[in-house]
């Protein structure tokens, strides 16, 4: 048996929390400085929601870029403070206890617990403080210029098909035995991530992933809390 360490990879959205990046974007847009800016950016976020839904099962990278456009010109100070508020007031209520239990068990079984999230670092870093089982967190980063967000995400954008490539690189860097590792995810573009490990599990999967999981005979989990 290999002596290499193993890991359990969790996609945050859908597995650990029931809320996604679109809700965060709308929350932020609705709290911009100034009423006009609030209305404008909230409208923008609202309009990009269907597009994100459409792209979500196919080109999630583009979907994420579109969703984060409404952060444009928002100061880092405001994003940091609102992220605290978002985590404390909104995200905490959306945490899926069953997912946290999976994480706890993975940790107890000796796996390195790695969380991948489409959320921005300002939010996810605060979430991580509350999730004590997490060894590593990989999430999206906003680009800033002169203290203001440009509305762009820095590469690599987490959430798309690049997840599989990223995972292979991470495993090589940390000498992880992927064949004995686990992965939990719920979106179509997570297929490559799930297929890269020996023990994939589709959690609350969307249509695309559910179909693929059934065909590949992967375990399926559905929970709402």
């Amino acid at each position, binding site marked *: 048996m290999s002596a290499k360490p193993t890991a359990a990879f969790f996609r945050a959205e859908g597995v650990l929390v029931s809320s996604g990046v679109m809700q965060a974007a709308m929350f932020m847009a609705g709290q911009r400085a100034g009423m006009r800016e609030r209305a404008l950016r909230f409208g923008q976020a609202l309009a990009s929601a269907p597009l994100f839904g459409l792209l979500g099962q196919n080109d999630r990278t583009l979907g994420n870029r579109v969703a984060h456009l409404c952060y444009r010109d928002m100061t880092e100070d405001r994003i940091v*403070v609102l992220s605290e508020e978002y985590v404390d007031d909104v995200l905490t209520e959306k945490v899926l206890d069953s997912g946290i239990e999976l994480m706890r068990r993975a940790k107890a079984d000796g796996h390195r617990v790695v969380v991948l999230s489409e959320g921005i670092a300002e939010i996810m870093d605060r979430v991580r403080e509350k999730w004590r089982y997490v060894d590593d967190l990989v999430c999206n980063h906003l680009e800033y210029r002169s203290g203001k967000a440009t509305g762009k995400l820095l590469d690599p954008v987490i959430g798309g098909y690049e997840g599989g490539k990223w995972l292979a690189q991470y495993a090589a860097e940390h000498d992880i035995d992927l064949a004995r590792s686990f992965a939990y995810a719920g979106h179509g573009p997570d297929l490559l991530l799930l297929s890269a490990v020996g023990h994939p599990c589709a959690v609350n999967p969307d249509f695309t992933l559910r179909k693929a999981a059934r065909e590949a005979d992967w375990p399926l989990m559905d929970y709402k809390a």
Partner: protein
Amino acid sequence: MTTSGPLPVSIRETLAGKHILLTGASGFVGKVWLAMVLHNIPQIGRIYILLRGKGRGVKERFEKIVNESHVFKPLHEAHNGRMSEFMSQRVEVVAGDVSQPHLGMDPDIEARLLQDVDLVLNCAGLVDFNPDVREALASNVGGAVNVGDFIENSDHASLLHVSTCYVAGHRDGFVPETIVTDQTPNGTPITAEGELRTLHEIIAAVEAENDDPATETTLREDVVRRLAERGHEGDYKRVTDMVTRLKRKRLREMMAKAGTDRAKVLGWPNTYTYTKALAEQLLAARADRVRFAAFRPAIVESAIDFPFAGWNEGFNTSGPLVYLAGTWFRHVPAAAGNALDVIPVDSVCKALSIVACALLRGEASAVYQCGSSDRNFLPIDRLTELSALGHRRHLREHGNGALERLILSRWDALAADPEHVLNVTNIRKLMGQVSRYLKHGLPEKIPSEVREWADDVSKTTETGVRKLRQIEEVLELFMPFTYEHFCVFECRAIDRHPALEPEFRFAPEDIEWRSYWLDVHMPGVRRWCFPEYEDKPKETYAPKTPFRLLDPPRLAPPETARESLTFSGG
């Protein structure tokens, strides 16, 4: 490999055994510096505290300051039951007044101090922006001149004179660390002596105008008319008393206006900066006889860590702006991108100690500016947003009712043009009209409940109008700094004297503004300054064992001082 740049100097070793005369010890900076030095350098020689008052009253005043101010908490805690001994070995309180010749000291004490003192740290001054010009002149200019006289007559003392960066006046751009002695900020040629004469002439003219019999007649007629309107028939004595009071009030107002007008004519925004600039110029003119350095802090704000994070007091520049950002008022008159040069009080006191050492070693420059804009720029629009976010954080948890928690917390203040339609003047006028309508404009035949409600609202609105008027005045005073001018104050001279001890390192570039503003400064002003704005009682400190200045002063032999160092260091 060789390294360039000056070698670090030990602040502790340089100040060990040195005798310092401190003026302005009851002020914000003076207190923090005193506590910081006593806490970190117990081997200091003797610190003479010049306080206004006479005899035992001065001693009691100092004891009250040390016992009630939170600044001295670290010292009380470090020395607990031995605080009285510790302080009495190092501190001597001297009755006096910087605005008086010979600093108002007893001649014997003065003679002793002229021999003993190594350094005078002149923190005394009137920091009101637009005070009665006579008071500003006595304290800010007269004080500097008298301290200069003391230095000139002393055996070997140097002077560290605390001024302000804003002596630069109405100007834009980079402000170097130099004293301009021959012209005002707007380029008017000037000599400090000549300007002092002009100012005395202005004061004399205002006094003469106020003492004019015609003025008294007008005031008397006005008082009699007003009393008659109220149905009172004023007797001669009552009218005379009222006229005397009115004349006194009028004189103060005219003196304040005369100072402001003169300052503005010459290019300074207010009497404070104008008189501080004059003081610097007068000292610079004596530079051949008075070894001195001008120390110019920018806007001194909450401490980062000494005496503890967030310590602040008084009505300082950012306080009212921060307060304003937490009210329903949204449009703070400020130009985006302008610096509000904020510097924590403990950074200022570290820098003061460094410059004091440079003076004692004979290595000091003429001017040291102590700010952040040159090394860690903080624009006013960022500060406004941070203030709004800080209030948001606070109100979400501690707001009074749903209105504050849900609405006011999200009612973000913004940096805006002073002419914005929702500026404070327009809001005040609108509120005034509402108040007047509710009081006098409602139809006579309305239900009594509605009348009562209207009276209540009218009273509340009137209070609001009064507060807005105060805010308006404050904003007007701060406009030169927040809107009209873009200044960056050079702050490099101090780098020539790196401090060996980390606790004295001056590094404004290390301040992370977001966490400073949200986690240190705002909780600080909320706890220590806002009660003052809201006329609420101040929180005072109460040590377990009250400090008493032992009489007569116990001079510490060097061995005792070293023992104390060991004790304190542990």
